[in-house]
């Protein structure tokens, strides 16, 4: 099957490039690579609830921030980073189950707003709960006593591993019964329920998975920049960019978010470099163009009519 060969080929290429990059690139390039890997993880995570299940979630920022704080706070207490990151994945996942119990009853616009409101509530709670989180003054992490290049390599390795995990989870879900169920939910949730599917459980699983991935990305991010505050990690753009990336590449597919993250990252870096003061305006124009001309994403552009 050429598709299987393409997939294996892409994985091998990606791993090879990452390893080469790890050894050959300088700290600046490694940090860019880390950012790209984080984008891949976030976009793939969003895709599970937003693309496959069709629930337009704006909660990514909520889970990213929650993971960042969970990871940072335990790391401050001396927990080693990998464990802190795992904790940073667990806390948002559990939160997603609780929040999802309320919010996943909604559909379409209402779900989008509610998921967005969750991020705002969490941001405000974090700002106000000063005793736990340091409030607006943020959380400071002890700087690592290793060289700049070693730091860069460490976090690059962490985020790329997370990106690989995200892509793998994406693929596993897509080809499993859960992915099939999510596709049915997206296309006709009521009919799926009438056939015997417990849609609540399937949606909750998707929401929790996407939260865990966003949370882990947040925790690694926190460790890598040594300082986080609520406005930074609960930023609206963290909710919106993964959506744009997944849509750009093709929401609902496995490779779409990865492709979209890469293309978006490329655009963003170019625009930052050349159009700093109007970069959000340019982003706005790109976003409008995306929605007008490529709403189904790059991957589905040529393959019109293929079953989802």
């Amino acid at each position, binding site marked *: 099957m050429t598709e299987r060969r393409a997939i294996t080929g892409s994985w091998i290429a990606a791993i090879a490039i990452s390893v080469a990059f790890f050894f050959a690139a300088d700290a600046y390039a490694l940090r860019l690579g880390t950012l790209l890997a984080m984008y891949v993880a976030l976009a793939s995570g969003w895709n599970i609830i937003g693309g496959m299940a069709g629930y337009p979630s704006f909660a990514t920022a909520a889970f990213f921030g929650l993971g960042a704080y969970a990871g940072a706070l335990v790391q401050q207490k001396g927990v080693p980073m990998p464990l802190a990151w795992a904790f940073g994945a667990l806390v948002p996942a559990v939160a997603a189950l609780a929040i999802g119990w309320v919010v996943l009853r909604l559909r379409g616009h209402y779900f989008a707003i509610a998921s967005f409101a969750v991020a705002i509530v969490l941001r405000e709670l974090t700002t106000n709960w000063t005793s736990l989180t340091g409030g607006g003054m943020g959380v400071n992490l002890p700087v690592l006593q290793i060289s700049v290049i070693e730091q860069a390599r460490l976090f690059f390795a962490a985020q790329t591993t997370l990106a690989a995990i995200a892509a793998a989870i994406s693929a596993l879900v897509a080809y499993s019964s859960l992915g099939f169920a999510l596709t*049915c939910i997206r296309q006709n949730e009521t009919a799926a329920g009438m056939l*015997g599917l417990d849609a609540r459980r399937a949606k909750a699983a998707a929401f929790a998975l996407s939260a865990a991935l966003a949370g882990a990305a947040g925790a690694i991010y926190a460790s890598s920049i040594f300082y986080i505050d609520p406005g930074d990690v609960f930023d609206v753009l963290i909710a919106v960019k993964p959506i744009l990336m997944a849509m750009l590449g093709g929401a609902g597919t496995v490779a779409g978010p990865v492709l979209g993250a890469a293309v978006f990252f490329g655009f963003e870096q170019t625009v930052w470099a050349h159009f700093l003061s109007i970069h959000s305006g340019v982003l706005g124009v790109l976003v409008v163009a995306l929605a007008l001309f490529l709403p189904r994403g790059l991957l589905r552009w040529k393959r019109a*009519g293929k079953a989802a």
Partner: protein
Amino acid sequence: METRREGRVSALLEVQGVSVRFGGLAALDDVSLKAEQGEILGLIGPNGAGKTTFINAVSGAVKARGSMRFDGSSIAGLRPHQVARLGIARTYQMVQPFPEMSALDNVAAGALFSGAASSLPDARKRAEAVLERVGLAQQARRPADELTLAQRKRLEVAKGLASRPRMLLLDEVNAGLSGPEIDDALRLIRSIAAEGVVVLLVEHLMRVVSSLCDRVIVLHHGRLIANGDPASVLADEAVIEAYLGRRYAERAAARGRA
């Protein structure tokens, strides 16, 4: 008193005093009936009589008061997916496929979600067999939204069949079909009932009702006004008054005499 036949409870579906209210309106009012394995029941009545509401009540899609028992255990208050897993399958008047998925996957969903198949590959295998049975094997790979209306109706039935139901609730599955298509549908329904499945069909076509159904139930303004074999129900005064109309009755009588 329930009689025991071959060690099983004979009335598979037992509904007593079921009512459904929407705001001030009683869509169903104190409806009671029983259905036995392998029976084909016709559910007729004017528009708005409560036929679809009845199906919605039994399948858990709307909240109903009253007692509803399936194979001895209560199904009142269960959510739709729980009812489906007990072996009750239903179709919709406005067909509800998964539009972008292939016919095969549509039917596989029926097999997988009901628990009839335990894995996706098994579900797809079962789906192939069911598509063969309803005559849609050729359309297996085509997306559901490319099928004709008649094919989509059969797809609905196939989805229900894939779940290995013990009761099948068909809501106007023949509306919009041509004569030969209806004959095919009747054959299929008879073969399903022959396997012991209770089939309850909402119908507007009297020839289907009289040739196919073992029993006919008539609803009017949410109330059950007749329950018996087709011949006597269709000649019943109250039914003629409410639904069939004088002219139908006269024509039927004339046909009987000729």
